[in-house]
């Protein structure tokens, strides 16, 4: 599961949606892998305004990566390749293959297996 997706994913429980503790989901016991993907500059320009930078900082720090700047970088027309490539690497190429995500509000643990998170809830939680 890519870090880009973690930046958008919330808890499935309807009582949690909207609360600030439910997003981003807390990542633990994560195994990472790098999956090489073709660079998509147009897509990055499209999606960057929607990326929650604070949440991204929280998630990357939970994974042990402290290399991102505190402020969201600006992507202008002449933005250099290096910036694009590093954003691309963090958001689209870093995969969480195993691990678990916990909701800060209800405590539900979502396991990640083979890169796929299990977002199903038990009958009592629906």
């Amino acid at each position, binding site marked *: 599961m890519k870090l*880009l997706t973690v930046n958008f994913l919330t808890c*499935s429980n309807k009582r949690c949606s909207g609360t600030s503790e439910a997003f981003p989901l807390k990542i633990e016991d994560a195994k990472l892998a790098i999956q090489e993907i073709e660079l998509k500059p147009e897509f990055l320009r499209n999606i960057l305004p929607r990326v929650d930078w604070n949440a991204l900082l929280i998630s990357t720090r939970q994974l042990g990566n402290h290399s991102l700047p505190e402020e969201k970088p600006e992507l202008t027309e002449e933005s250099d390749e290096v910036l694009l490539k590093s954003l691309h690497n963090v958001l689209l190429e870093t995969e969480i293959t195993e691990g678990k995500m916990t909701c800060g509000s209800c405590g539900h643990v979502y396991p990640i297996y083979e890169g796929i998170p299990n977002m199903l809830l038990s009958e009592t939680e629906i």
Partner: protein
Amino acid sequence: MSRPEHIAPPEIFYNDEEAGKYNTNTRIQSIQAEMTERAIELLDPEGPSLLLDIGSGSGISSSIAESFGHVAVGMDISPSMLSVALESQDVEGDMLLADMGNGVPFRAGTFDGVISISAIQWLLNADKTCNVPQRRLNRFFETLYSSMKRGGRAVMQYYPESDRSQQMILDTAKKCGFAGGIVVDHPESKRQKKFYLILQAGGMRALNTSEMSVEDEKVDAKKRKSKRKHEMNTREYIEHKKDLNRKRGRLSVPKDSKYSGRRRKVAF
């Protein structure tokens, strides 16, 4: 043949055997591919987009969306189908094991667009005592609406059981804030008829569903047959069929050589 929804809930109906069909059955694959391309055409995205693929299954629709330059996130309730998608390695995007009737678990304004192929009719089933179809429909459309950016479009191909199911789905979508309608391709043909629910989440783009249908082309049966006979002798077709048979595990497939597909002298 009874409808799949009447046989079992989706996570049970799509077991390993059924999921395997999506890998080997070329007819299923070509129909799903055609519907995906039509859905993306109706979606009319403005550049490389983040798309949600509901009921992504074996990943056919997600990988086609990716071939158009988009990034797709898929969700499906069947672990067997997701396994098939993982093994095929055709899908670059993420996939989630999730129940759409329980909502779309993404924060507000996430997606540029949404596609769904042959999935949402499964919402109308009450296959567990805790499942109330109307409640599931509500939860699905509410959360879908909020997860889309303003002006985003959702195109969902599905198989409605009756006019009543169509109405229920459209009414619920509208109650949750969507504008839109249903496009029917090939309305005259019983076999080829396809229903696409097109919804727009606010925004200023015009949506005129009455102008979007594809009418039937009356293809002469004779013309159709002769076209197929022509195709069958080409070398390409023969190699394609040989590949398929090798993939299916047949051991006696003849090897390719310079004689494959060569015109033989008429014996009689």
